[in-house]
């Protein structure tokens, strides 16, 4: 039987534990945005948003939205202490110039070599790439937060991606509901396992070889 492993919130919390104090991070739209709430309050972490914000704060209270201030998911946001605003060329200079310590992205598939597919399913005609290719190619560390298997139970960590790639050999870590996987030149290593998930179960649900820690 397939285990449950961590809940989505627990996955986000597990990832948040690994973000160091002082880090500049970009959290992709969707599941990665959940990470913010779990960053320990004693750590000062600066959130970058593609649309020109370094030092993005949490959503505003209802009625206090500023129409000129949104996050990359187009939802109202606020500014944190120390925030700055820039235009798109500077914002992507931050991304493409390797200034972000960590980009956390959602994933459809990750290969054993760290290829990432997260923008379009195979055969789909219209897709949106947004800043995903820039983040995947440019951030110092790319961490993927996703469920371990898809809705049909198929592994999302695979030998080779069958969906169109976002970037090749870019992923450093994968955080799923079953495990934390480190991605190196020579493949995948499980560096943490969710409660109720052992290495044999993890291997059965993964489309590529996984070493134990």
């Amino acid at each position, binding site marked *: 039987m397939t285990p449950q492993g961590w809940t989505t919130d627990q996955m986000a919390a597990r990832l948040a534990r690994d973000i160091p104090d002082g880090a500049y991070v970009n959290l992709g739209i969707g599941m990665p945005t959940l990470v913010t709430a779990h960053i320990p309050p004693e750590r000062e972490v600066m959130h970058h948003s593609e649309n020109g914000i370094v030092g993005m704060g949490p959503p505003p209270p209802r009625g206090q939205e500023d129409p000129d201030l949104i996050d990359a998911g187009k939802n109202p946001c606020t500014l944190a202490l120390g925030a700055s605003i820039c*235009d798109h060329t500077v914002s*992507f200079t931050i991304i*493409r110039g390797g200034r972000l310590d960590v980009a956390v992205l959602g994933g459809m598939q990750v290969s054993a070599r760290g290829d990432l597919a997260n923008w379009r399913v195979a055969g789909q005609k*219209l897709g949106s790439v947004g800043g995903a290719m*820039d983040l995947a190619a440019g951030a110092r560390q790319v961490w993927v937060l996703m469920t371990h298997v898809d809705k049909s139970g198929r592994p999302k960590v695979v030998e080779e991606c069958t969906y169109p790639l976002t*970037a090749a050999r870019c992923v450093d870590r994968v955080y799923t509901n079953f495990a934390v996987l480190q991605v190196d030149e020579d493949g995948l290593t499980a560096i943490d396992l969710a409660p109720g998930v052992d290495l044999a179960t993890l291997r059965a649900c993964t489309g590529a070889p996984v070493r134990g820690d």
Partner: protein
Amino acid sequence: MIDKVVASADEAVAGVRDGDVVLVGGFGNVGVPVHLIEALVRLGRRDLTIVSNNCGTGETGLALLFKHHLVRRACASFPAQAGNHHFVAAYESGECELELVPQGTLAERLRAAAAGLGGFYTPTGAGTDLMAGKETREIEGRLHVLEQPLRGDVALVTAFRGDRFGNLRHRLSARNFNPVMAMAARHTVAEVAEVVPPGSIDPDDVHTPGIFVDRVVQVGEAP
């Protein structure tokens, strides 16, 4: 005397011609020159190439250009999103083609055009479907893709404040693509919430220098 201020959005966009490449500022619905877009719809120029991060949602802004069948080609990073039915209809009927561009590559192609560069190599998109048909080169051991400059015939941008010299001050995340698009077109039109007397925007606070701006129109209620 230099005075780039015009009385109406219609007057501001009157120079747009059929087939023009039109750069449109904004990200989502923030910083989008909605009054200039509405004026462009009234002008009825056709076969436009629209360069913008998104392709509009609902019944306002960029969506109107697709609704009124004015766009032959869209160049965007995030066209597929909820509420984009007018773009989808134009795309699926074959009336409008799409060039999908990574967001940072879109910004940098505009910047390259603005700066008179012949293009640039970037690792973004290397090894993906978006590399198809492009020159590649290995630089410092990493595969790079050659990207071309992206110049506009016209740019439609927004700002918070503008003066008769065309100096613009943007506000918060409404800045986004507006400064680079203002610099990347032959003719730039800015809609501003408020036209202010020259000198009242501190020169240190001008985000887009007026040398890049040809027309300014006030569209907001002056506060």
